């Protein structure tokens, strides 16, 4: 005959119809920013790995040097490097490869051996920590005067500080969003409690326990925030996909790899669940606090 109607129709209340939207937008932004932060961290880690994987040594030819003299100096550099602690693979780049790298500058039709090109040695670290760069640079200068060591330190610092700044910003933004979303839940639940104060009071006077009343709100807050955060997440993932497509159209050399690891994806999905949980618990606590103020 008569199915029991919802006692506290939180979702039919016009003010709470707003809540899924707010939560949706908040979760959307939080997921996007969180994804951006994760990607940034990935990119930074990548660059850092590449750059701190080793360094480059250039041995320029002295004016009027015989090719043999240059070879001897290269050998001295290689020997010094191999003896240094923490240094792993040491590879001498052939003059042809160096010439190729210089093509944009020198034009295509140069013969490598015609030019007094500097010789390049690429060095990989075996154990970054044990390498004493300053001592090594001094030793190399001794072994082959004029040797130039390029350990990317300057660029690394630039990028680390840039990425660090952006990550701080992302953290602040996520905190701000979380705070706003929580404030929204608190305000909306309070408002709901205020609007439905009459009903709550009647339930209270009829002998309903606080838990009975809180449960009604809590249950509905859960479903509302679930719907909001689910749609926010779906939209965010769609946006990320579109951005990925957009980035894919660009030259891949320009853009670093824009994809998240499996573990990071899981972390990303935790955002809406967390939002849901916070909303539900906030609703519960707000209602209980309001009830406790009743006689």
């Amino acid at each position, binding site marked *: 005959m*008569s199915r029991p*109607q919802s006692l506290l129709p939180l979702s039919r209340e016009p003010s709470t119809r707003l809540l899924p939207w707010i939560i949706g937008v908040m979760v959307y932004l939080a997921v996007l920013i969180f994804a951006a932060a994760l990607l940034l961290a990935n990119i930074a880690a990548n660059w850092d790995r590449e750059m701190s994987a080793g360094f480059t040594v250039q041995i320029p030819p002295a004016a009027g040097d015989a090719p043999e003299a240059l070879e001897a100096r290269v050998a001295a550099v290689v020997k010094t490097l191999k003896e240094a602690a923490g240094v792993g693979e040491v590879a001498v780049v052939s003059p042809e490869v160096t010439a190729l790298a210089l093509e944009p500058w020198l034009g295509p039709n140069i013969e490598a051996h015609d030019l007094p090109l500097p010789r390049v040695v690429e060095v990989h670290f075996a154990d970054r920590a044990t390498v004493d760069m300053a001592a090594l640079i001094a030793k190399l200068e001794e072994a082959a005067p004029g040797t130039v060591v390029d350990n990317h330190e300057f660029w690394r610092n630039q990028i680390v500080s840039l990425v660090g700044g952006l990550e701080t910003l992302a953290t602040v933004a996520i905190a701000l969003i979380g705070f706003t979303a929580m404030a929204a839940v608190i305000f909306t639940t309070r408002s709901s409690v205020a609007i439905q104060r009459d009903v709550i009071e*009647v339930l209270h006077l009829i002998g309903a326990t606080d838990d009975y009343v809180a449960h009604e709100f809590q249950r509905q807050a859960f479903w509302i925030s679930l719907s909001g955060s689910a749609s926010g997440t779906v939209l965010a993932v769609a946006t990320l996909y579109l951005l990925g497509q957009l980035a894919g159209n660009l030259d891949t050399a320009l853009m670093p790899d824009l994809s998240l690891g499996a573990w990071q994806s899981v972390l990303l999905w935790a955002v809406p669940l967390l939002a849901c949980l916070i909303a539900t618990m906030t609703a519960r606590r707000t209602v209980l606090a309001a009830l406790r103020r009743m006689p």
Partner: protein
Amino acid sequence: MVRFENVGMRYGAGPEVLSDVTFALKPGSFHFVTGPSGAGKSSLLKLMYLAHRPSRGFVTLFDRDVTRVPRGDLPELRRRIGVVFQDFRLVQHLSAFDNVALPMRVAGSREEVIRKHVTELLTWVGLKDHLHARPPTLSGGQQQRVAIARAVIAHPKLLLADEPTGNVDDTIAVRLLYLFEELNRMGTTVVIATHNRSIISRFSHPIMRLREGGLVEIKQSAAE
């Protein structure tokens, strides 16, 4: 059942709206509370249905000092009290049926039992055709009868009715009073605040008269 000792009551920091009220109601008794508008009738009932605490004195309900009952025990006490509020306090978005079913649902009764009892009672108060109407679509007197049905559905031990016949004609009023007497006969203690002199004089029950916050007399009946 109900005992007031030197009870004073005030709203917030306002003046005392009840002062030095002392009386005792025996289980199974039936009292009218009367007095001019603003005398404190509704306030007196509020103390009895635990919506307010006295600012001084003692209120004893079901042999317990209500100022000392822990918060967790209040719901259980309240379930033994049925209240007809002066302004009805129906849940506007629930049907008449669901409004009346509330006290049973809160107490955890089974749906079949609820369905049977609620339908029966609403039929008895003349709302058979309005079971599924929401309060805003009911007339004033119909809403009042829903409020009365909600107060009595769970067979309370103490029934408090505040002006329960202000919006119905005398024929229905008498019928509702019979309902209260029926409950009273089954052991419910009844307290009715009312201005309706014809009702008071028609049923010979003791009368508590309030004036300006004080209990000025308890007459054994209007006929006296």
